């Protein structure tokens, strides 16, 4: 059966395939609850796949927490390449390749749905500097068109600074999930304008 929308596992939020969603969560416990609800359908359905992406060690940590919450190992999914761990990189273009390379393989393998979860970091070693990270986020939305993929980027409001939440969370994601409610971001900046309208002025203001 062809799938064109999936549940995010929070409230009754459903999104079409090809969606790029910002999840604002409050700490690790909140993220794990959403993670479990969002990814469980993919674990139960052999026609769906999972991809974790994040800074060094984060994807592995998310897998471990998911296994702990499920009470079982997912090594079978990893061995079958149905669950993939993708790593961030200081170079944002390499990080984009590290995300979409495996995604394209999963799509080519014929999965009906690929669910991506990426906890967000800000200004950490081995990860793009903030301005490059914002560029990376802005590039994801147009690349998801026509793909049976949903990308959920997790922004921890208890950890991340305001610029990450406002520019990264709200301006680069068309959809926002917060407190179990899904809405369109009222300040989404179209990708083709994000560099000239947001990043360049921001960087040049800071250089004054």
């Amino acid at each position, binding site marked *: 059966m062809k799938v064109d929308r999936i549940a995010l596992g929070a409230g009754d939020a459903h999104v079409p395939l090809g969606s790029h969603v910002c999840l*604002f969560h*409050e*700490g690790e416990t909140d993220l794990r609850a959403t993670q479990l609800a969002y990814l469980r359908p993919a674990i139960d359905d052999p026609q769906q796949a999972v991809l974790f992406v994040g800074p060094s060690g984060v994807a592995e940590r998310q897998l471990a927490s998911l296994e702990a919450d499920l009470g079982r190992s997912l090594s079978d999914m990893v061995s079958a390449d149905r669950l993939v761990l993708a790593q961030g990189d200081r*170079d*944002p*273009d390499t990080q*984009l*390749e590290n995300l979409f390379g495996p995604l394209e393989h999963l799509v080519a393998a014929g999965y009906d749905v690929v669910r991506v979860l990426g906890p967000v970091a*800000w*200004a950490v070693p081995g990860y*793009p*500097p*903030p*301005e*490059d990270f*914002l*560029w990376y986020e*802005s*590039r994801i939305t147009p690349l998801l068109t026509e793909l049976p993929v949903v990308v959920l980027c997790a922004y*921890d*409001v*208890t*950890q991340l*600074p*305001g*610029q990450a*939440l*406002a*520019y990264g969370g*709200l*301006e680069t994601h068309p959809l926002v999930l*917060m*407190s179990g*409610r899904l*809405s369109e971001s*009222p*300040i989404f*900046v179209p*990708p*083709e*304008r*994000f*560099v*000239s*309208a*947001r*990043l*360049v*002025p*921001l*960087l*040049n*203001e*800071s*250089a*004054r």
Partner: protein
Amino acid sequence: MDTGEFASLAADSLESGLAIVDPAGTITWANTSWRSAISRDAPRGREKALGTLADLAAGARGAAAAAIEHGIRAVIEGDSASFQLEYQAVTEPHRRFLLSATPLRAESRGAVVMRRQVHPLFERHEPAIGGVHSAEAAPPLDRLTPRELQILGLLARGLSNRAIARELGIEYTTVRGYVRTLIEKFGARSRLECVAMAFRWGMVE
């Protein structure tokens, strides 16, 4: 209002609130937490409107109004990159809250306001976006090849290396090499800082 009263008001509102305000102080969008505070405190006849920050601050007594009165006036004026007000809940001293406002200057004007409980290890000083002051550096105009200038123009449009390779009909790895060279020649710390410098010096439009 002193810190203690302020904090005690905030203590009973643990769910994060997020609102977007325009330069006039009108709340144009809010999540459920802010909406609940607004609808509870809004004057009669304006229940359906999102209201303004001044309305909330003037007449209301809720945690949101107190937080706005203490935080937002300092944020909306001036050229601050952002504003943060951190406070401790009186009734639960182990909980720390943050009211922050981040200006919007892209498609929208105004600010994104967030009220949230923060982790004890929260970074209190935001790592700057950019942060490298290169105003005195000279543009590397005479040190760029025609191909580098061409790729710089495509970077300025926000294209990825793969998209640039497709546009120019060259290998992805070749583009990657050019981008690294450009970043070095500009003395930039990042891909986007390189682009910003190019805009600043009028090398791209």
